[in-house]
């Protein structure tokens, strides 16, 4: 009877949760203190995520996307990492205040992560079935046999025949491995799924399949998702909300429509402009000039000012503040203090 009850738990809907936001982060700062320098990876960001929503976290390499989500799991290695925040609430629980044991209960159970490279995120010495079963053994306290049965079901759900549960990761292709990784992450029906560039290592046709699968499963299990990517196409395809990160800050945030149709921040504009133009095959690529700034520098002004073609003198001297343009849409740019300021993209 006991066993029956426990089994039922694993196939139930997401963990009960009341409250508007499954994730509520305020003023998150992460820095890495090494012997030579202090690297400011994340400099005060706010994130809120509603039930069943998908948030896209977009930005260049080194913008602090991965650091941000690792902090949600409290997986930033300390030292050298230092994490500060007013609050990081996952499912209403303050991650910063939890003990190691409580953290282990949350990880994988309430908030789970899909890593970037499926080739390296599976343990080569265990069969895929055993690896999926591990979450059931840790969180639902199932016996190995029961857990393996559950794992087979989960494999079927992500579209892999259950007979293959006894095979090792090297016997799978990249796309299949990523399905396995997704199966592991969703095994315990977490409320929040973090996908750290889940399709970067896959080719385009497989990307589509994996994204479809994730979308489908999120609907089925009512999971909220944070999708880290630098592919704007994926964002358009999967996300409800978008946050654009630059140098450890969120420079623009809004619904998909806000950010894509009604772009406000010069950096976001730059991202769109640097996409290849499919209609004019002779046109040159139009990248954002310059490089992402050295993260060891503390900025007195806007970190994007050097690369920004709208930058004025004040942009270098004064820190930009968050401007709320509508209920959902916000931008961090000084030029919007001027009533008639518009970037080129919105003029078109």
């Amino acid at each position, binding site marked *: 009877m006991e066993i029956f009850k426990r089994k039922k738990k694993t196939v139930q809907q997401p963990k009960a949760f009341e409250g508007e936001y499954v994730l509520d982060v305020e003023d998150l700062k992460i820095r890495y203190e090494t012997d030579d320098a202090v690297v400011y990876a994340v400099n005060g960001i706010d994130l809120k995520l509603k039930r069943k929503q998908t948030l896209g976290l977009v930005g260049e390499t080194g913008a602090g996307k991965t650091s941000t989500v690792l902090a949600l*799991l409290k*997986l930033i290695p300390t030292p050298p990492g230092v994490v500060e925040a007013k609050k990081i609430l996952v499912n209403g629980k303050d991650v910063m205040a939890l003990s*190691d*044991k409580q*953290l*282990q*209960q*949350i*990880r*994988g*159970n309430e908030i*789970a*992560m899909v*890593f*970037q*490279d499926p080739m*390296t*995120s*599976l*343990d*080569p*010495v*265990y*069969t895929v*079935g055993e690896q999926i079963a*591990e*979450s059931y053994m*840790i*969180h639902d306290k199932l016996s190995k046999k029961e857990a*393996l049965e559950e794992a087979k079901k989960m494999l079927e759900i992500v579209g892999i025949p259950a*007979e293959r*549960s*006894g*095979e*090792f990761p*090297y016997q799978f292709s990249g796309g299949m491995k990523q399905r396995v*990784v997704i199966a*592991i992450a969703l095994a315990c029906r977490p409320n929040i799924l973090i996908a750290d560039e889940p399709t970067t290592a896959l080719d385009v046709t497989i990307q589509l399949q994996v994204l479809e699968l994730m979308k489908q499963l999120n609907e089925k299990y009512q999971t909220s998702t944070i999708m880290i990517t630098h592919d704007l196409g994926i964002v358009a395809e999967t996300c409800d909300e978008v946050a654009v990160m630059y140098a450890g800050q969120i420079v623009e945030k809004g619904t998909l429509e806000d950010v894509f149709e009604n772009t406000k921040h010069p950096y976001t504009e730059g991202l769109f402009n640097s996409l290849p133009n499919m209609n004019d095959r002779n046109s040159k690529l139009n990248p954002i000039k310059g490089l992402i700034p050295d993260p060891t520098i503390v900025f007195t002004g806007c970190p994007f000012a050097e690369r920004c073609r709208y930058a004025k003198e004040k942009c270098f001297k004064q820190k930009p503040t968050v401007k709320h343009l509508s209920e959902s849409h916000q931008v961090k740019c000084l030029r919007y203090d001027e009533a008639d300021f518009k970037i080129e993209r919105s003029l078109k």
Partner: protein
Amino acid sequence: MKKSHKKTRNKSLIWRQFKKNKGAVIGLVVFCVIVVIAIVSVIVFDFEADITAVKAADRLLPPSKEHWFGTDNLGRDVFARVCYGAQYSLLIGVVSVIISVVFGSLVGAFAAFVGGWIETVIMRLIELLLMIPGILLVIMIVYTFGASIPNLMLALGLSTVPHFARNARASVLTVRNNEYIEASRALGASELRVLFKHVLPNAISPILVQATSRISGCIISAAGYSFLGLGVPSPLPEWGAMLSDGRPFIYNYPYLEIFPGLAIMITVLAINQIGDGLRDALDPKLKR
């Protein structure tokens, strides 16, 4: 069951790779034969009557039909003694390596896994042990606790602990930063679970290869220490001790030295071949 059938595939892959190395397979066969000899001789020979009993009439007989390897200066059958001695060499080799593998690799793996100042302290302490020459360590232990097989095992095991600790540390350091380790943490696995279930199994192959080749090293050392009178006490037919006993008769009765010497050589060669084969089979670059 289907699952267990599939799971053996990975192991059979290692086995297939191992089989390609002819020397390793021969080594394995020879090693198995030696193990069988060791076991059978315990059953067949009577320790009192066949191994240690002095028979003055049979002194120093050359190899013949009755005494295949001849007899020694006390009239004991050398063939029986060589066969009976196999168990000591194998036991000493295996047990002392197990001592050093378990202790050394756990300490090394723990140090690497935890990192920071704890790692530094542990590794420096281990290296302190490395500074003491092996033979000195053995002399110290044997003179303190007396010459016996368990003490020899302990001494041999302790003297190789640093090597295993350093190897395990290096191996864990390379595994520790893999993404699947972080992934298992993100899954909610406790640190102990991560170390024992994910880090160690992935770091085990170099330790295993080193352990195999250390067995032969320990057998040679044990024979050497017995030869010097530090190891297995005299009436026991340990190969090194037999070499030591036969030394005065080497000019006129060389077979007293040849057969125990050959036994040591064949055993060590076989184990080394197995070690080579294992190294090739477990090498990730050659596999798959």
